[in-house]
């Protein structure tokens, strides 16, 4: 390269972009962490995010209110999550099948009902504070973000706090580790799990809303492009910890943002190989922790293991 590379603006741009583009996945991953901690895996995140994204756009276009759009997205997402919770928790259906069916349905419904809104322009969610032309310093990484970005950070911190420091969170963890013991303590396993799945779903819907309202500011069919699936993976990579889910989502966002930059600069590192590493890392981490904990515990929330695995060690 003939010119000296300006690191500072590059990093600022990457970080800001990483946070913004990683937020939808972050929401979904944080929500799914809560659900899986309670012992339920929801593979329908992709479909739920799409439903959230479409609902947000539809409501924004029809009513002009961002607040209604976001609320509607969460509601629609919760309804889908409710179906999953009903089938799995109340009727004892196979979690994988239920999630996959919802992914297909969600993709279809959002595409079908969202047709009138494809390509329609609207005023999306803007940054909280107008960055203007002046401030391009490190502060702009945060100040240029929209409200939902901060909501995601609050969700991560809040989820962590709830899981560690509240009775509700304790109940969620108990239900995910040993539902029989939890029941013996008077905790309603059913209600706790349904609640956890609902929260997870509505957060995923929020993620979809951010994607369509703030990040791309339009609706297109299948626009999540697999981010729902990535979120499921990130939950495992971050070992069921909401703050780590947020961070790994931002890392994923960084990769997304870096890709065109890397291509333009002719860098030799393939962003795809880079993107692969967290998943390989998760495989290694899962294996190592499972081996180390043989006979003494579980590497993943125990009830999750039991429902997904028939072996009892």
């Amino acid at each position, binding site marked *: 390269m003939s010119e000296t590379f300006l690191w500072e603006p590059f990093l600022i741009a990457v970080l800001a972009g990483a946070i913004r583009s990683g937020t939808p996945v972050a929401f979904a991953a944080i929500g799914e962490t809560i659900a899986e901690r309670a012992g339920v*895996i929801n*593979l329908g995140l992709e*479909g739920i995010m799409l439903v959230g994204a479409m609902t947000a756009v539809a409501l924004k276009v029809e009513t002009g209110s961002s607040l209604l759009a976001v609320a509607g997205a969460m509601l629609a997402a919760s309804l889908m999550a409710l*179906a999953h919770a009903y*089938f799995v*928790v*109340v*009727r*004892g*259906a*196979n979690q*994988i*099948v*239920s999630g*996959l*069916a*919802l*992914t*297909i*349905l*969600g*993709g*279809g*419904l959002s*595409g*079908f009902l969202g*047709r009138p809104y494809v390509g329609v322009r609207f005023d999306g969610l803007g940054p909280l504070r107008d960055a203007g032309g002046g401030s391009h310093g490190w502060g702009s990484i945060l100040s240029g973000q929209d409200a939902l970005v901060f909501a995601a950070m609050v969700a991560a911190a809040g989820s962590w706090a709830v899981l560690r420091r509240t009775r509700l969170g304790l109940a969620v963890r108990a239900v995910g580790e040993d*539902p029989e013991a939890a*029941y013996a303590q008077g905790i*309603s*396993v*059913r209600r706790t799990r349904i609640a956890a799945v609902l929260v997870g779903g509505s957060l995923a819907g929020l993620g979809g809303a951010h994607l369509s309202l703030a990040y791309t500011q339009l609706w297109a*069919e299948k626009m999540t492009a697999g981010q729902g*699936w*990535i979120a*499921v*993976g990130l939950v*495992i990579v971050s070992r069921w910890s909401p703050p780590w889910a947020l961070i790994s989502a931002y890392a994923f966002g960084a990769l997304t943002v870096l890709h065109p930059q890397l291509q333009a600069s002719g860098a030799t590192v*393939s962003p*795809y*190989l880079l*993107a*692969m590493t967290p*998943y*390989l890392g*998760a*495989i290694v981490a*899962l*294996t190592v922790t*499972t081996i180390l904990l*043989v006979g003494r515990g579980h*590497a*993943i929330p125990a009830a999750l*293991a039991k429902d*997904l*695995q*028939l*072996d*009892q*060690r």
Partner: protein
Amino acid sequence: MGMRLIAVRSTAVALVGGGALFLVVAVLLRSVDREVLPTLAALFRNGFGDRLGLTETLVRMTPLLLCAMAAALPAKAGLFNIGGEGQLYAGAMAASGVALYAPFVPGVLVLPAMTLAAGLAGAAWGAIPGWLRGRWGVNEVLIGLMLNYVAIFLVQHLVHGPWKDPGALGWPYTARFAPDAVLPTVGTTNLHPGLLVGVAGCVLLWALLRSTAWGFSLRIIERSPRTARYLKLPLAGHLMASLAAGAVFAALAGFGEASVVQGRLRPGLSPGYGYAGFLIAWLAGNHFLWMLPVAFLVAGLYSGADALQITAGLPSATVDVFMGLVFITALWLRASRVRAGE
């Protein structure tokens, strides 16, 4: 409850489920100003009614059936294989690698070499979660899921990088395969021997599972891994082998898609065949004979709906809505008992 009452109840439940499904579909169709019954009739006609539709259905059935087998065989040992997607891509990558970059292979051996490569790649991709589960009890669902991402990213890397088609002006796919590397097809259709492999494989597996000691071993392992250990059955070996063997089928599906349907390796080769296969296997109760009609039906619905896109102008998302509803209904019908207490 008497047997008669149970039968009546089941039929009633099935009718309610079917009725609800029909109702929802009807509402959706009316919302876009389509006549319900004629549209549904057209759907079935497109998928099964004429030669063109039937052929298209069979073409689609091939990867669906193979991926269903990939999920069902490990299920016989009690494993959940949702890594079908990754195994499919692994097979596609291996076959493509041989097709494009093994110039020393004589023309007539290219296809066998591709088959071998695909099979080995698939077996390897499936052996990883299988072995980790068998040897250390690592959850194969999560590992399989992770490996799906790895495979998809690997394909992206290859088609954007080392294997990129130089004449493709930046589009992310490889060069077209030479005619030597394309499977023989029926006439001008995309129907290739993969379907035969799938059907024959299903019948063979069904027969073997019920009449051999191996099948009995798998039944034991599926229901009680602890008993299997007590009996000194080679548990880890069986688990790994069943996942690896199932994965071979998914890999062959990938091979078929790359070689015939696409003619090259590209991302998005599979619109979720791995997951759809899992669902089909589940619908068929993991029964190798029932999988044949179920895969056929699902393939027909997909191809029929695709045709509807053109003939009736329905959005492509319609088929997903329909399939999603079908599976939800099946879920509701299957899980008809309320989970006991807690």
